[in-house]
């Protein structure tokens, strides 16, 4: 599975694509099981240059209780810094946050697709 993420231009907030709009919670992100709609969404997102910076697809896996980004780096983006649990999205709590917080493994860079730009 894949999800589409970016940082919002105006404030840098980590955001996720959800059927044509950007949401702040990973739990509300649209999860793509097929490549074609995922790539289409990425293409649309890249045209939203006054809304987000550098949108990219990430790998997502089903874990106990729900979906979570495979990459540890992406899980940190979806949660917030581990030294300050009161900061970032993790402070909101909720089931989706719990699922991501309890996921394990995964490469820092492995979760980001299309990292090498094709000419």
């Amino acid at each position, binding site marked *: 599975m894949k999800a589409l993420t970016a940082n919002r231009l105006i*404030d840098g907030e980590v955001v996720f694509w959800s059927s044509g709009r950007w949401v702040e919670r990973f739990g509300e992100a649209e999860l793509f099981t097929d490549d074609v709609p995922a790539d289409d969404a990425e293409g649309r997102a890249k045209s939203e240059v006054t809304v987000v910076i550098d949108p990219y697809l990430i790998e997502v896996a089903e874990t106990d209780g729900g979906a979570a980004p495979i990459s540890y780096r992406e899980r940190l983006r979806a949660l917030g810094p581990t*030294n*300050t649990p009161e*900061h970032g999205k993790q402070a909101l709590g909720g089931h989706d946050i719990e699922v991501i917080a309890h996921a394990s493994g995964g490469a820092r860079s492995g979760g980001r697709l299309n990292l090498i730009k094709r000419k």
Partner: protein
Amino acid sequence: MYQYDALDKEFLADRSAEFRHQVARRLAGEITEDQFKPLRLMNGLYLQLHAYMLRIAIPYGTLNVAQLRKLAWVARTYDKGYGHFTTRTNLQFHWIKLRDMPDILDALAEVDLHAIQTSGNCIRNVTADPRAGATAEEVDDPRVWAEVIRQWSTLHPEFTYLPRKFKIAVTASAKDRTAAKTHDIGLSLRRERDGTLGFEVMVGGGLGRTPYIGKTVREHLPVARLLSYLDAILRVYNRHGRRDNPAKARIKILVAQLGIEEFARQVEAEWALIDASKVDLPDTELARIRGFFTRPDFATLPRVSDAFDAARAADPGLARFARNNVHPHKVAGYAIVDVSLKSIGATPGDASAEQLEVLADLAERYSLGEARVTHEQNIVLPHVKLDDLAAVYAGLKAAELASPNINLVSDIIACPGLDYCALANARAIPVAQDIARRFENADRAELVGELKIKISGCINACGHHHVGHIGILGVDKKGEEFYQLTLGGSGAEDAEVGKSLGPALPANRVGQAIEDLVEVYLRERKGDERFLDTFRRTGVEPFKEAVYAEAH
């Protein structure tokens, strides 16, 4: 400290207005991110994992009361109530919004602060000994020369697009508290036997992927010739630095490839071509700058304070604080106070808005209005009366700023790591927190003595791991956080790059490994050897054996 004049203030106001316009154009879609990114970076604004990060320059680590209070206000108004002091003596805010940036720059400009040249391939913020003007060890005030370099390098048209970033540190004491030999240029002021002041100029130091200790390119540069000589070095670098490969573009690579003798020859040849009268600072201008760093109005006091001695005898906490965090001042009756930003379990280098305000209040009341930032991510109150030490300690303690651990095992440098940084491979902060908790017992920490642990979350080495007595480098090993340990590094006057201990350890073994290393040291040490001295005598073997024994 240096006071901005009307021209400086006008320039900052213009620069801020310019960036306000650039932000508006970016938000309106009139310029692309590719066009905007270099503009925001020139104003210290990076995009990190969770938000924008703003790096504010603190020239030679010197802050006045108004600046501390303004930083606290910015932290509270625009960030999440704290800031992070870095190994370049800068301050970073980690939760900045682009839409707030123009107002933040305006607010900073009100107290003569900005974020210019905190990013990009230019001459970065110049650092200096945090005890400048307070220690009896120095032969001159290094801030004078750091300010000279700051003015010379600010928006220098020839050196705005160097092959890579360029960092300069200035020290004037034999004891180096600036890590001068890890800088692109390290300047060490010396007084010759004939009384003349000169710089030992060290060049080509640097950490990152290929660490080098700076080499001396000139033993004695007359101080009056500083700027033309810096011009010559920068010109040779600007011409021959490897612009084709960012990983080889720092001056350390050029110096290593040419060899220091050939590099020195080219610098001398270039220097001979420069019209020094147009570059070197006129005596009148030097005198003007020196005028900003005149000796403060110190009181005439006895060398010993009965009040302090009595307070110290009555309070073991104060006594411990005095042993570790208080240092001799050049003026009788005064002391230099190191304020640790490494309380047990805290994030190294972080200070809350409330703590910044306490520091401002204490600096105002007890330290002639000054505070300094150290490259080890701590704060210095440089001019505290011995009579006031107990009050300063009480004020710090109430704000959780009185950790008596300067230079001890829990005084750890750590970069923001993967918790914040877009470049990091692994976290650094939790590793530091774990180690600090293991050495929470202050008696044990003092028994261990000076031990500098430095942690970086990636090979860029912002946490100076190469020059830690124990260095810890986070790596990504098949998706898990692993940590490579190095031993025997030093960033001080006896600078050395640490040696690898062995294969990287998983995150959950690092804390125990540090405890094992300390146990070996305590077993092996002779007399008053520091950890570093023992390691240099015994070599890596006993340490390696302790950490990897059970793995075999």
